[in-house]
């Protein structure tokens, strides 16, 4: 199977790749948000101490 045929998904490229792309974005957001919140917590806590 060629790379082009793989990405064409038998003519359903738009539906398949939009689904996978959106899933990736949502799942990444659920990781990034708490990581930022933790960093923010430590920054604020250190500020208060000083």
């Amino acid at each position: 199977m060629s790379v082009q045929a793989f990405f064409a998904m038998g003519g359903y490229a738009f539906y398949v790749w939009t689904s996978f792309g959106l899933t990736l974005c949502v799942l990444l957001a659920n990781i990034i948000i708490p990581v930022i919140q933790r960093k923010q917590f430590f920054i604020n806590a250190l500020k208060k101490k000083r």
Partner: protein
Amino acid sequence: MFLVPDPVVRFFHRMASPPHFYVFTERLMPWLVIIFLLLTSAGLYGGLYLAPPDYQQGDSYRIIYIHVPSAWMSLFIYVVMAIAGAIGLIWRIKLAEIVAISSAPIGASFTFIALFTGSLWGKPMWGTWWVWDARLTSELILLFLYLGVIGLYGAIDDKRVASKAVAILALVGVVNIPIIHYSVEWWNTLHQGPTVTKMDKPSIHVSMLIPLLLMALSFNVYYLIALILRVRVELLQRERNSQWVKNKVSENKQ
């Protein structure tokens, strides 16, 4: 409690203590990430490359590898949230309360993914983005339940009170779970019946089934990772005046 072996009981007692949970999950995290990456790459390779196209739906069916596991997760996380909420309500275990509320955004995300990918699958196969079919409607109600839980928790300032309110809402909403599961059998509508969770043999070929189960496992591990990250933040915020958090801050150990 004599039915449960002693080390197991001790493990759960220690895990219910916030500082212990914080340190333990920190060490657990790299292993979870490795398992998640292995499962996901194997599942995607099997599902997108190795598995043959469907004889009716062509390659469009490959959306199943995220659609179905997401839909399973949306139900599973809801049940976890309701049980954790109930435990928090009955035994006042702070960590259970936090697990309940931290599950809500992750469950809402999976519900949203299930609905959105379902829509993208429905357009080429059914010819429509959306129908008011029993399965689709009950899943949409599940999304509103999750959003209701998040909104209610945010609206009450005292987080212990908020946790109680949220737990009751989550428990009431549990009636929706069997409705979603059996909707395709009770109402004969557009959404197809179950192909995997049938009492007899699943009506899906093994080359398609294995990647599907791998993706389901991968999403379970993902839930654990995302849950731990959120629980840790919530623990820090709720316990910000306690000594162990102050120690973490002065060590600047994130």
